[in-house]
């Protein structure tokens, strides 16, 4: 279990690194002149490419972040390991649902 989670976190980190680089680049470009819904949606709506890009981003982050949160809670709090596992799993589910909903909202 621990070995699998360790591997999954590193694997998702390798997926996320280039996605974060592109996302940061996009943020730096998009922020110029202020943000508007029209400008954001013009870029993303109906785009299969951005749907796949941010869909993968959400799935990877919904695996990566809860494993990190699980490590922090196990090392820095006195919570029982079963409670920590439940919290991490719930957090991952939340990220997946609201994240995919956000992708759907901007590309749909």
């Amino acid at each position: 279990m621990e070995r699998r989670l360790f591997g999954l976190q590193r694997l998702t980190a390798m997926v996320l690194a280039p996605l974060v680089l592109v996302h940061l680049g996009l943020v730096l470009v998009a922020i110029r002149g202020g943000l508007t819904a029209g400008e954001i949606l013009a870029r993303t709506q109906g785009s299969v490419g951005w749907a796949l890009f941010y869909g993968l981003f959400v799935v990877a982050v919904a695996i990566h972040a809860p494993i990190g949160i699980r490590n922090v809670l196990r090392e820095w709090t006195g919570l029982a390991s079963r409670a920590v596992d439940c919290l991490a799993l719930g957090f991952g589910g939340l990220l997946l649902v609201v994240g995919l909903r956000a992708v759907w909202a901007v590309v749909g």
Partner: protein
Amino acid sequence: MRPHRNHRAYWAFLGHRLSGLALAVFLPFHFLALGLAVEAAALDAFLVWTDLGVVKLAEWGLVVLLAVHMFFGLRLLVLELRPWPAGDARLGWILPGLAASLVVGGVFLIGAF
């Protein structure tokens, strides 16, 4: 700070961990805000807030935290998955990672204001 913790690698560990925690707290709210895009008017009403100086400053903080987490995370991947080099070269990844994050933050500030 105990001596074994007053070390550049410990500060890098702390920077990576705290930036990850902050991003994890922020992410659900970011996704919820983007979910408003189902109605462009609702998203625009929200985006009005992003014109406020204090909100831009918060966005700058998040951009820097994301960059720090990525650069320090890349350092961890290299440190854990690549053969260990002679000497302590991995310390050499910390300051450039921090500097690159601050450059990203600087470019953001120039664009935002």
